């Protein structure tokens, strides 16, 4: 599958930036605090030069990834149990669905209440946010093709082997989808927790720069956050393709 470079698309993107620059310069777009793209570039330079950006990025990544990794462990384990043990599913799925209806952001104030203005708050929020997509995707991934399980039975695989060699690999593609969704929501919720809870990281940087009336640096931070999301998603996909070549290839996510 040869990937053609989308020149047209890139041109439109650049054109949009140029247009934005012109509109701001000529004051057609007249907002007091709307920076032009060049000002955003300068802001990025300043943030990089004084080291604020990398420090904040590191903090946010640490919190989001810790929560996400924890959610990965708990979500896959709990999802497996729920997907495999019928009575557990019957006697808890409705509770989980009720809990899931609670908008996740509404938990941020609760987490701040419980864990204070600390990095634990961020990690807990990231964990809770990522837990849902990971767990629910694991549950549906565990619906294995019955014929595959029968194949395992006639070849006399042990229960552990059926779980390890048939069920889990069969669920891998779904679990990876859950992990990717989980990663992006845990990043978002970590930012929220930093804005209203723990004053640190990129979320707080945004708020701080807003109060200091530094729109250029602010937009630069938003840009960095967007790129971080894209890079993280790419890393997860790449790692999954490396580690689970067959599973990803067979589910159409060809390497």
């Amino acid at each position, binding site marked *: 599958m040869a990937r053609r470079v989308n020149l047209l698309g890139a041109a439109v993107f650049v054109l949009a930036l140029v247009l934005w620059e012109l509109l701001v310069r000529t004051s057609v777009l007249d907002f007091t605090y709307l920076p032009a793209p060049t000002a955003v570039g300068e802001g990025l330079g300043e943030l990089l030069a004084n080291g604020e950006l990398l420090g904040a990025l590191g903090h946010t990544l640490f919190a989001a990834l810790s929560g996400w990794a924890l959610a990965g462990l708990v979500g896959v384990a709990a999802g497996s149990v729920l997907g495999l043990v019928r009575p557990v599913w019957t006697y808890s799925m409705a509770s989980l669905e009720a809990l899931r209806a609670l908008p996740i952001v509404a938990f941020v104030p609760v987490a701040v209440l419980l864990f204070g203005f600390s990095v634990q708050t961020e990690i807990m929020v990231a964990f809770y946010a990522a837990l849902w997509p990971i767990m629910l995707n694991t549950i549906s991934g565990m619906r294995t093709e019955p014929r595959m399980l029968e*194949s395992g039975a*006639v070849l006399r695989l042990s229960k552990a082997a059926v779980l390890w060699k*048939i069920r889990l*690999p069969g669920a891998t593609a779904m679990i990876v989808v859950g992990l990717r969704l989980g990663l992006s929501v845990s990043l978002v919720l970590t930012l929220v927790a930093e804005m209203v809870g723990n004053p640190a990281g990129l979320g707080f940087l945004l708020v701080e720069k807003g109060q200091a009336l530094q729109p250029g640096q602010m937009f630069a931070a938003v840009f960095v956050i967007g790129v971080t999301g894209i890079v993280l998603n790419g890393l997860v996909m790449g790692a999954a393709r490396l580690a*689970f070549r067959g599973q990803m290839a067979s589910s159409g996510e060809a390497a």
Partner: protein
Amino acid sequence: MTPTISCDDLAVTLPGASGPVHILRGVTLAVEKAEFVSILGTSGSGKTTLLRVLGGLLPASGGTVRCDDTAISGPPEGVVTVFQDYAHSLLPWRTVRRNVALGIEARLPKSERDERVDEALTMVGLLDRAEEYPWRLSGGMQQRVQIARALATRPRVLLMDEPFGALDAMTKASLQDQLQQVQELTGTTIVFVTHDVEEAVYLSDRLVVLNGSPADIGLSLEIPLPRPRHQITTKERPDYLELRHRVYEALGHTVGEPARG
């Protein structure tokens, strides 16, 4: 000689949309060691059901099922089923080689395992596709992978559910001959479900016809054709034609009338 796998007065009842449905009743069948027995019947007559019971995948509702004089509960050691739908019974994330190794990888050291896999793949003529993923193979090739996976475990009994059902005539013929060779080489007992009369007569030492509802064995017929058999010469023999005639009759066709579906 004691039968390898057998059932006595077997009954199977399964839940249907409107109450339980009796699918098999009073089925008695004993398969000898190294025998090739075909089970024939129209679609929906219960062939797959019977095979699943013999393979320990479905409990009987009545009667007894035995493998070497022990009652069956779950798939017995050395009895491997080859399923009708090959597409869903192979693991799509494993290469052909690793699919074939699935049943033996926990029991054998690596060198012996590789040897067995190569041997099984050679038997079905797929050694050169060993590193491919099964979903990149044709349907017939996938079915051969499933057969190789069974052969790699060196089964005593092979239960095959319409293994060549979805294949074209030429591939089918060549796989039939491969299967004959494999059986000659390994002495495996084979129970072979099919709805193809020619195939059943050509391959079997004995064939049974399932009919009725609930189904039981309507005809049990020895096929004393000499071995090795040959696609052209065997099928031209008068005794082959005579046997074929009798099976068609048992399935409800009569001479002089056009065939019914």
